[in-house]
């Protein structure tokens, strides 16, 4: 098991494996999203309180979920890199940050657009879910800025991993904010005690979108990690041999 783990964490092995897996994640991801978009926009019934505006849920919830998941991947990979000094895990953390920032931006903007017709405002500073999600975006920016500011990759890896681990507290706050404090934002929909509080006709497209976004995120992440690995390993023998081989990458 440990041997397999080390083999997977070997940069040349991972580089080749990721090239094979990435398209296999993208294809089901796109198919699930296509179904989710069609069913969410045209088949799911209208919400009796929110009307058709509720359909924003099909892009807002997957984005918000990925904003937190990407951060956890970044923090856990950074932590693994700090403890076990696995180079690949720092590459994963570095590659997850821009994607996490993109999905956090999407969660914030789609949430704001949804809030305008429902709450009568684009933004509410007193709302814990909104402000903690904004802090999450700043954490991503801070993480990327810190990496960019340190030339030495090993030092940048360590410093950014510590920042990512500290920021996990904010992810917990984002997740539980709607339960801990009174909030304009609605409570948990899917992870509610007693099961999701949605009609199956609304729920299935949402689950398809969440799964589809996750597959697509996985595919994008693998592609970014490959680039990060290639850059970090640019002076190694295996990269030289791969570049000079007739098949290339």
């Amino acid at each position, binding site marked *: 098991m440990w041997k397999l783990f080390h083999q997977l964490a070997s940069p040349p092995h991972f580089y080749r494996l990721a090239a094979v897996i990435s398209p296999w994640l993208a294809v089901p991801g796109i198919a699930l999203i296509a179904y989710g978009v069609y069913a969410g926009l045209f088949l799911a019934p209208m919400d009796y309180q929110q009307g058709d505006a509720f359909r924003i849920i099909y892009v807002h919830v997957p984005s918000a979920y990925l904003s937190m998941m990407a951060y956890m991947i970044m923090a856990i990979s950074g932590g693994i890199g700090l403890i076990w000094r696995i180079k690949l895990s720092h590459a994963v953390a570095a590659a997850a940050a821009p994607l996490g920032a993109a999905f956090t931006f999407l969660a914030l903007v789609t949430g704001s657009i949804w809030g305008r017709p429902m709450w009568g405002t684009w933004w509410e500073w007193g709302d814990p879910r909104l402000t903690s999600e904004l802090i999450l975006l700043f954490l991503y920016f801070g993480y990327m800025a810190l990496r960019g500011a340190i030339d030495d990759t090993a030092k940048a890896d360590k410093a950014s991993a510590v920042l990512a681990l500290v920021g996990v507290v904010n992810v917990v706050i984002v997740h539980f904010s709607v339960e801990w404090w009174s909030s304009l934002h609605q409570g948990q929909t899917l992870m509610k005690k007693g099961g999701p509080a949605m009609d199956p006709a609304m729920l299935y497209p949402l689950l398809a979108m969440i799964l589809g976004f996750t597959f697509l995120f996985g595919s994008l992440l693998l592609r970014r990690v490959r680039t990060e690995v290639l850059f970090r390993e640019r002076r190694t023998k295996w990269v030289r041999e791969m570049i*000079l081989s007739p098949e290339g990458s």
Partner: protein
Amino acid sequence: MENLAMGNYGVYVWSCFGLTLAVVLFSDWRARLRQRRVYRDIEVRIKALEER
């Protein structure tokens, strides 16, 4: 047409879906662009070293 209007919420719903598509496509394009650049830079450096 009525479907597209989304009961007067069309501008909110479609802008969210459009923005999501744009961000996902942009992320994909950025990833491909960086991959190509990094690969090309390494290729140029290695081939220059080989020619010496």
